[in-house]
């Protein structure tokens, strides 16, 4: 159907633009937030000069991301002498693409009714409505884990094919770490599946739209606070950032499995890492923070506890939902950056022990308690 295609293309363009922008922006956020956390100023020297004038735009150092990208694009594409050509070039894409693909099943807004949004096109759309999600799959959560698994292959291929002992060690570590923490990630989310009775992410978010006892938003973090903590921990470990950055430990392994990549290929790994921050934040928001929901808000507007209702036009509701989702994502991104610049790193044995002997039993205990509670409460 042309209508479905048009809406899907719109969503895809939005998702790609949003993710790449957020990924680039997060490099700036990371620099600035780290600077503020340690009483510094942060990068603020790159500028764009308006042609024919002496006006230099600095904009709080926002152009440093552009400078980085330009540098990476113009650098020599240095390749190791003995490398597996196919796997070497495939590794980058297998690390980068699945991260982007995860966003296909994440609902970034409520239900879009294009006919109401654009009255001239109402006839063409014929009253069709679309959930704001690129791929309306009713097994969305499974797709998330499937793509998460593919990015492990990317890291391992990259490390193995570049014929370097540091890369190989990094790849081995990446494989062991990602597999370990994937188990924890899956088990924590199972509690939510029990609570909501679905693996459809749209259904999960819709289930979180109400209020609990009249004042608590019925978000996943209220039902499953423990699972939220475990999920965030395991997800940061999945992203291989500092408290868990053993696969790319700079002090031991140069930069781990992508040591032998240079120029924009290395930049792709870095960009994938930054986009994954946003993806993790989006997943956390979807599963635990009510997605696009605000307290007392539904698809028509606000219905405040005093019996008061505020009707909003459909366009404003859509905009508000999208912005709410983005705002929550940014808060969680900032939290991840706070964690990355605060906590010291684990040792390798501690890392695996933490996953298997600490997080996994807790996740199972959480699951058991949730299952008993779900059974008892019917």
């Amino acid at each position, binding site marked *: 159907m042309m209508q479905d295609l048009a809406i899907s293309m719109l969503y895809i363009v939005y998702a790609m633009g949003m993710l790449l922008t957020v990924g680039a922006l997060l490099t700036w956020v990371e620099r600035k*937030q780290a*600077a*503020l*956390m*340690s*009483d*510094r*100023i942060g990068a603020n020297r790159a500028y764009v000069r308006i042609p024919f004038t002496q006006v230099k735009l600095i904009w709080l150092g926002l152009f440093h991301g552009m400078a980085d990208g330009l540098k990476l694009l113009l650098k020599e594409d240095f390749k190791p002498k003995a490398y597996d050509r196919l796997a070497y070039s495939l590794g980058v894409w297998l690390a980068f693409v699945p991260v982007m693909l995860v966003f296909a099943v994440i609902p970034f807004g409520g239900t879009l009714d294009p006919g109401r949004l654009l009255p001239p096109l109402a006839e063409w759309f014929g009253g069709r409505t679309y959930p704001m999600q690129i791929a309306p799959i009713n097994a969305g959560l499974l797709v998330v884990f499937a793509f998460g698994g593919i990015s492990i292959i990317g890291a391992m291929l990259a490390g193995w094919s570049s014929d370097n002992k540091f890369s190989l060690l990094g790849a081995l570590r990446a494989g062991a770490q990602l597999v370990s923490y994937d188990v924890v990630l899956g088990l924590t989310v199972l509690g939510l599946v029990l609570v909501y009775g679905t693996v459809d992410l749209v259904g999960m978010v819709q289930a979180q739209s109400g209020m609990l006892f009249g004042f608590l938003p019925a978000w996943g973090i209220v039902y499953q606070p423990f699972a939220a*903590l475990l999920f965030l921990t395991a997800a940061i470990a999945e992203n291989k950032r500092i408290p868990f950055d053993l696969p790319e430990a700079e002090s031991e392994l140069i930069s781990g499995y992508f040591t032998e990549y240079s120029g924009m290929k290395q930049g792709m790994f870095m960009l994938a890492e930054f986009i994954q921050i946003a993806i993790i934040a989006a997943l956390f928001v979807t599963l635990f923070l009510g997605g696009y929901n605000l307290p007392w808000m539904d698809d028509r507007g606000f219905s405040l506890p005093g019996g008061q209702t505020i009707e909003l036009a459909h366009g404003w509701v859509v905009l508000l939902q999208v912005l709410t989702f983005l705002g929550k994502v940014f808060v969680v991104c900032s939290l991840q950056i*706070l*964690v990355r*610049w*605060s*906590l010291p790193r684990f040792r390798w044995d501690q890392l695996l022990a*933490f996953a298997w002997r*600490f997080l996994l039993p807790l996740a199972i205990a959480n699951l058991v308690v949730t299952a008993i509670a779900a059974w008892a409460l019917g």
Partner: protein
Amino acid sequence: MNRQRKPYVRPKYWNQPRMGWYEKAYVFEVLRGLAITGGVFMRNMAKWISGRKGALTTYYPEETRPDYAPANRGRHILTQRPDGRPQCIACNMCATVCPAQVIEIDAAFDPDDAAHPKYPSRFEIDYSRCVFCGLCVEACPEDAIRMVRQTPDFPGSDRHHMWSFKEELLNWQPAKDVAKPYPVAGDGSSGDKP
């Protein structure tokens, strides 16, 4: 086999960290750490938003620190006679004593000035190599070169722009503390009378 290997005993240190269940639970201590760093972040963020600077850093070329010592050895100046000629007699003592060899002087002859016929036609200092030791000031017999509190301020991307020339060194206009009065030509005195 009598090669009995002794079992490894982990050494005990006096400052062995002792962790109770609270510390071993990770979460509480992690939250405490995050609260500390997050607090610093929030405090600095509030400062930036309200227009104050949330850091001690000085934006160097745009901003200089106000708290240099009064006796700070900063950039050089050449003192002048009342008529504006340099007090320097191009004796090359400063250039000789300079450990970094950054002073370059060309001497010239001035027939109009009977008391000080030798003067520097060129006096240049390379600040990319100057170590600011102050030996040139101590070596000068005429009190012609001094160092002032202010820094040279030569940030740049090119070392060839870090030279200071005679015009710049001479553009210090003291309101008081004129070094020496200019002797009346031909009276034979050494010039140390006021």
